[in-house]
């Protein structure tokens, strides 16, 4: 009898816990923005009592989950093409910006000293440039003494938004890279060694003499890695920083981009960092149940409004104000339930 009573209480407690969880916003997808989403969620819960249950299972998983309608929103580091979005009835908008940084391990070269451009980096990853004292690298760095060390390219082995941004940038910078390799979250690298995650790439790069790799900006900064400066589309040499990422986002032509389908690599502007990218959110335009979508939109609006400082603290870059205004306009015009807009906020 006692056991039975205990069971009843346990079941009631479980039921209560589940009803409490039902009020939470649910989302799944990209791992790259997970740290900032988690931080926002924590602050938002303290303020409103509404939590966010975000599963960082990867962009591919996020797209599958939103298409299966098991979550309220999906998140992806690669924007979906407008046709795909229309077919699925989804709305897409950018949430946060980050940058990818080439890092090197060459004796005697400190952070920011080495200068590279897209074509050179592409030639390195294609195996066309194999030595650090190659004339192409020397030409960009006339003042540096470069050793005759073999270049050991390191790449991200796990499918990721970082891979996508990096390979997309190299595809834009080099026609040969574009035709032989192309851009994706995983690509078939012809040479080099694959390491898992930012931590794997960082570790392989720091322990291999002559290595070059690429990691998310926050990772390079927090680990004091020797990053390289890059030549951008405007021809100026830029260093990776919050400002140069935001410059790339601000110079992008969001207004005419259909469904916010815009890749921020290789943007115009003298200050734009060339390997910048946004992470996207996916929502149904005509949700069967508008209530959770409305809660999610409230959360995103709050994050745009009050989350910028938290984002900067984690080395992410908030969206430019003009882009936020466009996103909110898309919310109020495109997300509807029974003919009425779901989003009625500012």
């Amino acid at each position: 009898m006692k056991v039975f009573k205990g069971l009843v209480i346990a079941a009631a407690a479980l039921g209560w816990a589940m009803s409490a969880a039902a009020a939470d916003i649910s989302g799944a997808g990209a791992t790259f923005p997970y740290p900032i989403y988690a931080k926002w969620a924590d602050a938002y819960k303290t303020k409103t009592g509404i939590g966010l249950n975000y599963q960082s299972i990867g962009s591919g998983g996020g797209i599958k989950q939103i298409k299966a309608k098991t979550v309220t929103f999906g998140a992806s580091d690669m924007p979906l093409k407008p046709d795909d979005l229309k077919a699925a009835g989804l709305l897409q908008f950018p949430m946060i910006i980050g940058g990818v940084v080439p890092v090197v391990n060459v004796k005697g070269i400190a952070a920011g000293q080495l200068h590279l451009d897209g074509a050179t980096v592409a030639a390195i990853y294609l195996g066309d440039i194999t030595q650090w004292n190659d004339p192409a690298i020397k030409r960009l760095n006339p003042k540096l003494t470069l050793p005759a060390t073999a270049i050991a390219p390191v790449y991200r082995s796990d499918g990721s938004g970082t891979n996508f941004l990096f390979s997309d940038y190299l595809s834009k910078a080099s026609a040969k890279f574009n035709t032989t390799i192309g851009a994706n979250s995983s690509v078939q690298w012809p040479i080099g060694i694959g390491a898992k995650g930012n931590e794997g790439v960082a570790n392989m790069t720091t322990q291999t003499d002559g290595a070059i790799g690429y990691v998310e900006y926050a990772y390079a900064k927090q680990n004091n890695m020797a990053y390289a400066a890059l030549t951008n589309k405007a021809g100026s040499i830029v260093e990776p920083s919050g400002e140069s990422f935001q410059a790339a986002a601000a110079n992008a032509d969001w207004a005419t981009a259909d469904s916010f389908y815009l890749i921020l690599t290789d943007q115009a502007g003298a200050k734009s960092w060339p390997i910048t990218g946004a992470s996207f959110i996916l929502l149904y335009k005509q949700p069967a149940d508008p209530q959770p979508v409305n809660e999610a939109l409230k959360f995103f609006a709050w994050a745009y409004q009050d989350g910028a400082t938290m984002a900067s603290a984690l080395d992410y870059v908030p969206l430019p104000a003009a882009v936020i205004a466009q996103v909110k306009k898309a919310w109020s015009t495109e997300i509807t339930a029974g003919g009425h807009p779901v989003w009625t906020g500012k």
Partner: protein
Amino acid sequence: MAIIDSRHAAKQLIYEKVFRSATLTAAILVLLILGGVALSLLHGAFPALKQFGFAFVTREIWNPVTDQYGALSAIYGTVVTSLIAMAIAVPTGFGIALFLTELCPPLLKRPIGVAVELLAAVPSIIFGIWGLFVLAPVLQRHVQPWLIAHVGPIPGIGKLFMGPPYGIGILTAGFVLAIMVLPFIAATMRDVFDTVPPMLKESGYGLGATTWEVIWNVVVPHSRAGIVGGVMLGLGRALGETMAVTFVIGNAHRISTSLLAPGTTISSAIANEFTEAVGDLYTSSLIALGLLLFLITFAVIAAAQAMLRRLERRALSSI
């Protein structure tokens, strides 16, 4: 009295029936789960198999950009890393088990036995991180340059040890796998050696046999089935190990003759790419890799069973 007895008997009969059907259900459940796994793998892999046909197994290409997939490099990596692991772990595990059961001073028996079992309890991610941060730099700085300089120039075998010393690669993965499967092999073999009746061994010693002769002619023949079982248990784990291998194999969909070069295995490719795989053919190809691993493991177990049966027959005929 008689009435109570028959009641008691009837009750027992019901218990018996309930127990019987419960165990039967449990056993059938295994079959259902296995069948379900096979069916869902087949279903998921179908688009890729339909697109590429048998060429999926024979092509080395793995290009998500052009949506061209072939499993050959992953199959190669899986088989080669497992073979390296077995080449190191089987003799070592055999030695550990023999030492523990036949030669070890009683004082050391428990500590070594417990240590072997503890090794089996270390999660694979720990082996991966250890392999990447501790083992790989040591191999890169001290072992691989030596191999490249001294073994590399030898014709034939030298081909296996060429290229830059990355620290991680097929050889490192095989080495980490060896450490991971060692406790399974050693523990199984030890338990089997322990079941050899002391009378048999003592008879051997009584006839004037040396320790080596007793081990080779009495202990080993008596525990053949267990030895094969231990090896297969280890091989099964080596074939399917995911996380530790992903960290140290270098994850390149390429086949190189050099063991120092990066490669990939079936399970590490799935772990690396499944989360961000966008597109039906890509996902389906990864599931098809899973199906192949399922088939390879099945073939290994079937081969082990066949080998055991042959050993038994030979043992019977020799009597």
